[in-house]
């Protein structure tokens, strides 16, 4: 059972996340609409005391994965997919990218998703882990890589990437 008022609160951020993830406005809204349709089909499975936002983000993520799998040859493991949605501008490697959109687009999809859920939507790491069905450790490593890569893209000069998690005493 999905309470319309709760949905009204969550829908704008769902739309915002889709736009930042996908890039192109109509395609982003398509993803949101597909998510809502699937959510309504499965509405009976949603417990009233559950986290509606997390549930909807998770449905959106699954739809996105399904869509990407259909578009790519099956030999590529999903984690290695560097998706460049055709609507975004291509940028040469090594050039300083001052444009945030372009820098985001150059992130592998799974890094972009983590970064956006944390930085844009303010989800806690444990929530991101639930939504994306990955361990929290994987959330942290993708977040770290995304941030370093973005930092390199947006800086004035080339910065070598140092994405690995390390314990500093």
């Amino acid at each position: 059972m999905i309470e319309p008022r709760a949905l009204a609160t969550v829908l704008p951020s769902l739309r915002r996340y889709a736009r930042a993830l996908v890039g192109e406005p109509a395609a982003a809204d398509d993803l949101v609409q597909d998510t809502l349709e699937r959510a309504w089909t499965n509405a009976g499975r949603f417990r009233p005391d559950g986290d509606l936002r997390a549930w909807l983000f998770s449905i959106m993520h699954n739809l996105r994965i399904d869509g990407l799998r259909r578009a790519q040859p099956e030999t590529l493991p999903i984690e290695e997919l560097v998706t460049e949605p055709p609507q975004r501008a291509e940028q040469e490697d090594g050039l300083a990218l001052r444009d945030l959109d372009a820098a985001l687009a150059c992130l592998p999809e799974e890094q972009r998703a983590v970064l956006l859920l944390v930085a844009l939507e303010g989800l806690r790491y444990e929530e991101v882990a639930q939504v994306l069905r990955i361990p929290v450790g994987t959330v942290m490593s993708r977040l770290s890589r995304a941030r370093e890569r973005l930092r390199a893209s947006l800086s004035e000069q080339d910065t070598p990437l140092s994405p690995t998690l390390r314990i500093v005493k």
Partner: protein
Amino acid sequence: MNEADLHAYVDGQLSEERRAEVDAWLAGHAEDAARVHAYLAQNHALRRRYAGIAAEPLPPRLAQWLTPRPRRWLPFSSLGRIAASMALVGLGVLIGWQLAPEHTSPAPESDASLPRQAAVAHVVYSPDVRRPVEIGADQEEQLVTWLSKRIGTPVRPPRLGELGFELIGGRLLPGAQGPVAQFMYHDASGQRLTLYVSTENTANQETAFRFAQEGPVNVYYWIDGRFGYALSAGIEKERLARLAAAVHAQLTQQP
């Protein structure tokens, strides 16, 4: 210190105590401080870049999911997608069209967006063949009760039979600050007309009739205290003016 805590510091996910510890650490470690600063800047840039989207009014094909309806009345995928793409074509026509000379005077914010919102709603819903309205004229009392409750004040569709237009029914739409009502009429030739009733006007002023040409759609609109009314149709201005006068006369008699 560990990497995960640096990220948690950036994202505000640390306890007060741990946050203070990281603060102290960063004061003595310039490289880590530079990274944290860069990550914070990224967070701000992302939020600024995408803040507008969450504040936008929802497009009709998404907003319709917010109206509490029995599940069987929700449009299913392909039909919804076709209607949405038709709507986008209509919107493209509107956006590409220059405003007519009659509408060059700058109007207050709430005033200027009313004809545009009404015209967009007209373009989105008036071509719909299968479900142009949510509740039909054959259930007018139910329509009136439902709409009045949702927009928070009694609202009754005016009678335009003498001018050739019969009520088809009505629906609820998302406005900028709350729900608005849309009544749809048609004449013997199938020409459709919509009346947009909004209760969100906060400028608290009255306006006389204003005319706007929004692409192929003519709109007469006026503001009466909290209420904004807009009558939209793809018919000639003079005929629309007579209809607007009739609507105005009937609505000002309502309690």
